[in-house]
């Protein structure tokens, strides 16, 4: 039986992502033994100790320069074995979503998918996760020696770093070129370099009522830019070509978890709510006072979005 919690820390441009700190700090708060970090690839690991890791296990090899399922699952399995941890946490990012179920099958470790809460029950870590698009929540109990959890980004607060430093332990996963089973041949960057919707802390979203792509772009994007928000959309807006598929929020789009979600001309269909109902503050602007979105809104404005949005953009600019 293992001991402690291992956090798989993802990096971006050589530094840990915010989710790494979120999970390290949560792991410490769970109080279930030593907390260590797992890093795959290179990067500056110096801040991981201050956020709670006592050791950093690092798998670095040419084969992990970009993500491939084969190399990463092997690296994760080697890191977990080296750490001896009983619980492994990772942010529910695209690579983790791809790798973790396969890892679960490979090492026979129970897997809780995209949990939004974790607790320590007598030394056993239990996850809680939304199911049926957030219409219900359920506990995931691990029955195997090692448990894996992916965690929805922004589930836990991130405080200023206060811990010490961590020793780095190099782990040899025995990677060979044959492990790179699926090769990345091109990367298509998003048109605008905003934070990914699933990790965004602020989102400005629009519905089909914006009518044309031009209006969607003119009315919503400057407002989003004024507060550093990522743009989202309803499915009706995406299907009408007002926004990209990657911008859809909801049951068949992205599930988001920001501090602030501003919805313009979105009716609040159950499938849309499924993607954003856990947002901390929801603002709805809709000309129909009976629109269902108002039942979920922290603050609501009944009015014409074409009038409200430009005024709000100007007002928000004063604050930034």
């Amino acid at each position, binding site marked *: 039986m293992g001991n402690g919690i291992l956090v798989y820390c993802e990096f971006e441009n050589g530094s840990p992502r915010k989710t790494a700190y979120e999970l390290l700090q949560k792991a410490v708060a769970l109080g279930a033994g030593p907390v260590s970090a797992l890093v795959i690839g290179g990067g500056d690991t110096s801040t991981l100790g201050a956020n709670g890791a006592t050791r950093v296990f690092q798998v670095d090899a040419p084969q992990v320069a970009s993500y491939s399922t084969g190399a990463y699952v092997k690296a994760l399995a080697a890191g977990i074995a080296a750490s001896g941890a009983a619980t492994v946490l990772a942010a529910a990012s695209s690579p983790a979503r791809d790798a973790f179920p396969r890892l679960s099958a490979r090492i026979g470790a129970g897997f809780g998918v995209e949990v939004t809460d974790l607790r320590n029950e007598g030394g056993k870590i239990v996850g809680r996760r939304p*199911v049926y698009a957030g219409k219900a929540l359920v506990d995931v109990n691990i029955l195997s020696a090692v448990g894996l959890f992916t965690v929805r980004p922004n589930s836990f607060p991130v405080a200023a770093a206060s811990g010490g430093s961590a020793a780095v332990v190099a782990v040899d996963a025995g990677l060979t070129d044959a492990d790179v089973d699926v090769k990345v041949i091109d990367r298509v960057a998003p048109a605008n370099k905003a934070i990914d919707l699933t990790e965004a802390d602020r989102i400005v979203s629009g519905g089909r009522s914006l009518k044309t792509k031009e209006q969607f772009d003119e009315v919503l994007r400057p407002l989003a830019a004024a507060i550093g928000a990522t743009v989202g959309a309803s499915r009706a807006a995406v299907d009408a070509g007002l926004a990209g598929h990657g911008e859809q929020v909801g049951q068949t789009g992205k599930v988001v978890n920001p501090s602030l979600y501003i919805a313009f001309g979105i009716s609040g269909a159950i499938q849309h709510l499924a993607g954003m109902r856990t947002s901390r503050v929801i603002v709805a602007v809709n000309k129909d006072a009976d629109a269902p979105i108002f039942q979920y809104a922290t603050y609501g404005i009944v009015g014409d979005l074409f009038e409200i949005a430009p005024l709000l953009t100007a007002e928000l600019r004063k604050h930034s």
Partner: protein
Amino acid sequence: MKIGVCLKQVPATDTRIRVNADATAILTDDVKFEINPYDEYALEEALQLKAAGKATEVITFTLGGADADPRIRDGLARGADRAVRIDDPALAGSDALGVARALAAALKAEGVGLVLAGRQAVDGDGSAVPAMIAELLGCAQVSWVDKLTIEGESFTAQRAAGGGVREVVTGSLPAVVTTDKGLNTPRYATLPGIMKAKAKPIAVKKLADLALDASSVGAGAALVSFSNMGQPAARPAGRILKGDSASVVAELVSLLHNEAKVI
């Protein structure tokens, strides 16, 4: 090449969810079931690949009871050639890995060269079974794909890579590919399709037919269990701001700043 499509029935997305007495699952009486929306993209892609001469046969694979047959028939009506349904009492209580073991065994028995499955089933929202199938089959996998081409023994796919980035990747078949919105526009069944589907076979398989040991699936083999299912707490009542546009906007910004502290 045969294409296997994993097809699951899920409650319609507008279903009101009610939890059962022991808080382990939802109540399914008067729930309307549909094909999982993401599996519709998988089926459509398979049908298009077959039409383009890249596949010889499209077979759907479902784990479940006879109550899933209307959805399986829907898949056949849209154009799948035949269906396999795995139904065995020993599967009760299986977790994702148990389900993946059963599906992988059936896919292997058919010699499927490409497995297409929805990126997640919108009931448990697990998103785990396809990657587990890939592990059990020992083949490549690509998740959340919105563009796919097959050329001989290799594939090229565009997948979500986080941060809004899409990665174009390539690998060799056999492979498991999970399908995302944007890949295609799923067709509906036509009347002639529905008539034809009546004659298409749904083969029901037991674990013994798949040479699977009952101890490798079901509650006894599960690595996770679920409990304490409940509904999320209602959001506290919100506030509708009243007044002319300029004043409500000013009030909103002040509330976001001073009360909610989010800007």
